[in-house]
């Protein structure tokens, strides 16, 4: 059951990469990443509770280009996991499970994730007073 040398069923690396499997892996990857990134949400609220010095430090870190890159990664991950999560919820009802539907919804999810990421960043830059 655990450390045995029983043969395993074919794993990820044995298949030719295709949209379906890539999006599936991406769903897991973004899920784990968002859970890690959620710590940042706590850090933001905690900094606000702790005082202006801590909040200023956090803003400086997030304002750095590396911080912005991480925030962009979090935004896209959240947008993708949310959109693809809806795709999964639809599948749970037994709908859109034929191959054509799976590919169509896959491309739709990718487009929607990019649009949603753009909407959040457009809002953020407008709120922050432009570029």
């Amino acid at each position, binding site marked *: 059951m655990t450390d045995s040398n029983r043969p395993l069923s074919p794993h990820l690396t044995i298949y030719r990469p295709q949209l379906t499997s890539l999006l599936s892996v991406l769903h897991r990857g973004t899920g784990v990443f968002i859970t890690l990134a959620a710590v940042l949400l*706590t850090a933001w609220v905690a900094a606000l509770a702790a005082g202006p010095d801590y909040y200023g430090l956090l803003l400086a870190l997030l*304002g750095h280009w590396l911080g912005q890159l991480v925030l962009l990664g979090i935004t896209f991950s959240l947008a993708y996991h949310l959109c693809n999560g809806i795709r999964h919820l639809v599948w749970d009802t037994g709908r859109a499970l034929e191959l054509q539907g799976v590919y169509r919804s896959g491309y739709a999810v990718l487009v929607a994730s990019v649009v949603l990421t753009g909407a959040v960043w457009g809002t953020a830059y407008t709120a922050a007073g432009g570029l």
Partner: protein
Amino acid sequence: MRRYETAESRARGLGSAKNGFHHWWHQRLTAVLLVPLMLWLGMGLALQAGAEFEAARDWVANPINATLLIVAIVMLFYHGALGVQVVIEDYVHTAGLKWLSNLAVQFACLVVAVAGILAVIQITLGG
């Protein structure tokens, strides 16, 4: 197809594992709730981009925002813990390590969630 389950076992529909339904169901319940919550949080935080300390604090202190923030934190870390548990179950093959990593992840999620909730409450009470 011939089935070898007893009538009771068939009615319960839990299969050989005997549990797992609640994990599956809670994962989906939190997923459905997280759709509007995360759209609200994403836009709400985007509007606070580069905000002054007082302005950002006032946003959190607003009773509606504070309530939704706490609900979002609970849902986020619960859904996250449920999801990471499945990843660990799939990829950690040693029983002891599997148990230990799940315990560590769930404990970490609980601690960070409680810290976040406390911070929101502290801001709301103006402390």
